[in-house]
């Protein structure tokens, strides 16, 4: 049918197609350009300039901001805290989510109720999660210290000691993410063919063997991807830290993104903060690249 059209007709059709496509694409891509691409470029521009102390302009300083950022011990402290935070949050969140997923991925009477309960934290806003934990860990009224006391253990300064604040925040973050992880891992578990599990069951394998030898290996690609996702999320955790510790005590929970916020809005060092944010972006990109690479592998070999 296409071949019967004359060249002019085809050209006309082609141009009309281009115009039509433009109308469809314009709203989304104009917004992308203005609010994603432009800010990203401006962050880059900012990070290469310095505030002029006398005028209101900015002067080009090359990589000076980056040099300053990485030469500050605070920066490395924040990077280390972020890593520590992610290293506690991610495994814990995976473990908690996996336990929930294992309990609800197969249908049984009443499973819907448990799914709702386990997936529920996805609907709990960060601010509410933070307040709930703030009270749960309250030095006087909190249940956590009461439970410790009933076991004969001393109360803990969960959010007020430099040693405990960051791990506590990591636990809170893992808790807030359980719903999210449980949803993804439930889907992953449901994708494991039931025939395989049934076949080994017939062969007399107990539930323990089945889990370690069949379920876990078959789930491991999903587990790895979800793990990366959780790491990426935890590297930009902000709300719970802002609400509960403000980066303290003694900067013990001053993670990378909080440092950016602090430098920009309290120390008024916008270009420096931009450099710090871009360095964080590089780390996130590397992790995302790893994720895509693994996704590609999974598609080819999975």
């Amino acid at each position, binding site marked *: 049918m296409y071949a019967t059209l004359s060249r002019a007709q085809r050209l006309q059709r082609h141009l009309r197609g281009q115009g039509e496509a433009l109308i469809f*694409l314009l709203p989304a891509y104009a917004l992308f350009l203005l609010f994603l691409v432009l800010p990203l470029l*401006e962050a880059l521009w*900012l990070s290469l300039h310095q505030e002029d102390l006398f005028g209101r302009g900015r002067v080009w300083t090359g990589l000076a901001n980056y040099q300053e950022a990485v030469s500050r011990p605070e920066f490395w402290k924040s990077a280390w805290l972020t890593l520590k935070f992610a290293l506690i949050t991610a495994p814990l969140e995976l473990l908690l989510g996996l336990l929930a997923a294992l309990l609800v991925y197969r249908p049984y009477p009443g499973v819907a109720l448990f799914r709702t309960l386990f997936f*529920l934290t996805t609907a709990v806003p960060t601010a*509410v999660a933070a*307040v709930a934990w703030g009270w749960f860990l309250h030095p006087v009224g*909190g249940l956590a210290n009461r439970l410790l006391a009933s076991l004969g253990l001393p109360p803990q300064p969960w959010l007020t000691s430099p040693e405990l604040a960051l791990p506590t925040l990591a636990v809170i973050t893992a808790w807030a993410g359980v719903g999210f992880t449980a949803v993804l891992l439930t889907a992953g578990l449901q994708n494991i063919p039931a025939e395989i599990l049934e076949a080994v069951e017939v062969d007399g394998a107990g539930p323990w063997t089945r889990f370690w030898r069949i379920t876990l290996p078959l789930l491991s690609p999903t587990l790895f991807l979800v793990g990366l996702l959780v790491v990426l999320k935890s590297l930009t955790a902000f709300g719970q830290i802002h609400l509960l510790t403000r980066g303290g005590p003694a900067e013990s929970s001053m993670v990378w993104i909080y440092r950016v*916020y602090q430098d920009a809005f309290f120390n008024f060092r916008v270009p420096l*903060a931009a450099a710090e944010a871009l360095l964080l972006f590089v780390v996130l990109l590397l992790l995302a690249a790893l994720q895509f690479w693994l996704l590609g592998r999974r598609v080819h070999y999975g």
Partner: protein
Amino acid sequence: MGRRRRLWPTYLLAGGYALLLLLPLLTLLSASLRPEGDLYAPGLLPPRPSLEAYQEALTKFPLGRFLLNSLLVSSLITLGVLTTSFLAAYALARLRFLGREALFGLAVALLLVPGEVTFLPLYLLVDRLGWLDSYLALTVPFLASPLGVFLLRQFLRTIPEDYFDAARIDGANHWQMLRHVALPLSAPALGALAALTFIGAWNMYLWPLVVTKSREMQTAQIAVNFILNEEVARWNVVAAAAILVLLPSLLAFLLAQRAFVRGIAMGGLKG
């Protein structure tokens, strides 16, 4: 009978674990139902339950306004994302034009840019536009989403060509095909994207924190922060405010759990 007996361990384990997980929320609920004198009384249940704290939270803080702000902002963002994403996704999946692959590639690349990295220059931009402390700042930058474009484009490509061919033979143009073929068939994907976007917008914290100045413009999340700061010792009032902020998203989750779950599964694994 035998089956039910075999299920007991599962019920016990799942019930116990769920209780443990929800404990912080339950203690929050319990604190919100206590009058100030009973706040530190032991036990999970409030000894003399009362709605005093709720009453105080509601009279002392414009919680209705905060929740309305959040609702308005989240709804506008969701509506915007659905519209802009669906239009762009339709073009990327169904139209032939120059640079299609490059534009799709751009959306995929932008998926990788987290808001936490761009918030600083975005703040400066919004400041220059004179939008600080307004609904414009809270909504406009988020009316389009690379994830939305990506997910819907992938979904639209799974719709068999035959459906569109049938419409084309009837003389339908692209607008008509978008409305009468693509739109009804995309309902599940749109629902999932809506749930994902809404919850994301409802949860926004860093951005509303930096762009809102006046109390009237604060969203519910930010309001929780301010109430926590103002009512340091009065946890029952803080708890009541937090429970009130939790209720709408909890209700939305319970009503549309299927869409939420699908949205997370879709968005979480990004294809």
